[in-house]
């Protein structure tokens, strides 16, 4: 049962990622990316990270993708990738490069997995464990994140302002 769920989610994730890269229309790409983000949220659920799954759906599939779709609507693209590609030779090198990258990352990742620690029971309450870590050990980075978001907000307002 778990195997079936993993297979289905992995298939959806890889297929939607390929759809994002291969489809020409950026709106289709954005929708494929939403599917991909949702499948990663499902992966988080199977890994016992319920809070991250919820945060993934709210922050990524909700907020960030709305921003992307909004930018696509503002710029109204669609015809920019038609016509001959002046750098076709370089871009065909992407396939072997991507394959090599996959083998490299998967190989090192699996080799570095190592042996699991003997005592590794997942905490019963995922949200409580994250909250305890976030507001004790990681309090300083947490506060810094708010400064980062404020700085990003100010920067975006400055960038979006029309020059007078």
């Amino acid at each position, binding site marked *: 049962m*778990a*195997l079936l769920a*993993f297979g289905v989610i992995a298939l959806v994730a*890889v297929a939607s*990622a390929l759809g*994002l*890269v291969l489809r020409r229309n*950026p709106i289709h*790409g*954005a929708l494929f*990316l939403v599917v*991909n*983000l949702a499948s990663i949220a499902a*992966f988080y659920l199977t*890994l016992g*990270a319920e809070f*991250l799954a919820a*945060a*993934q759906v709210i*922050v*990524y599939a909700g907020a*960030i993708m709305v*921003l*992307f779709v909004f*930018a*696509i609507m503002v*710029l109204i*693209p669609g015809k*920019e990738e038609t016509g001959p590609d*002046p*750098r076709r030779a370089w*871009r065909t*090198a992407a*396939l072997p*490069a*991507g394959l090599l*990258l*996959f083998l490299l*990352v998967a190989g090192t*990742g*699996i080799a570095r*997995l*190592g042996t*699991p*620690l003997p005592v*590794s*029971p*997942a*905490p019963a309450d*995922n949200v409580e*464990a*994250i909250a305890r870590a976030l507001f004790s*050990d*990681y309090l300083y980075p947490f506060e810094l*994140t708010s400064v980062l*978001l404020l700085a*990003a907000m100010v*920067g*975006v307002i400055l960038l*979006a302002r029309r020059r007078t």
Partner: protein
Amino acid sequence: MIPESWYVAVSAALFAIGACGVIIRRNPLVIFMSIELMLNAANLALVVFGRRFGSVDAQVLVLFVMAVAAAEVAVGLAIIVAIFRVRARLSVDDLSLLRW
């Protein structure tokens, strides 16, 4: 129980597909979305490794990555919109001012 190495393999596949997208595509918005894909693949690997070692720290780290990614998307999209508001074609090949 699914072995963790499978999760790592899926994460690596998503990362490689995202990298291919960054190389192949010419639309800056699609390139940006491919970067998001790579970020998510890295997040997935982080959660898998965190579960392997029975630690919740990795999940906190993923939370920070999400916050930083939100800020990055906001600033990046603002830059893209600002650049291409004055240009006719939406293609990264046109941005060659800083290239020798």
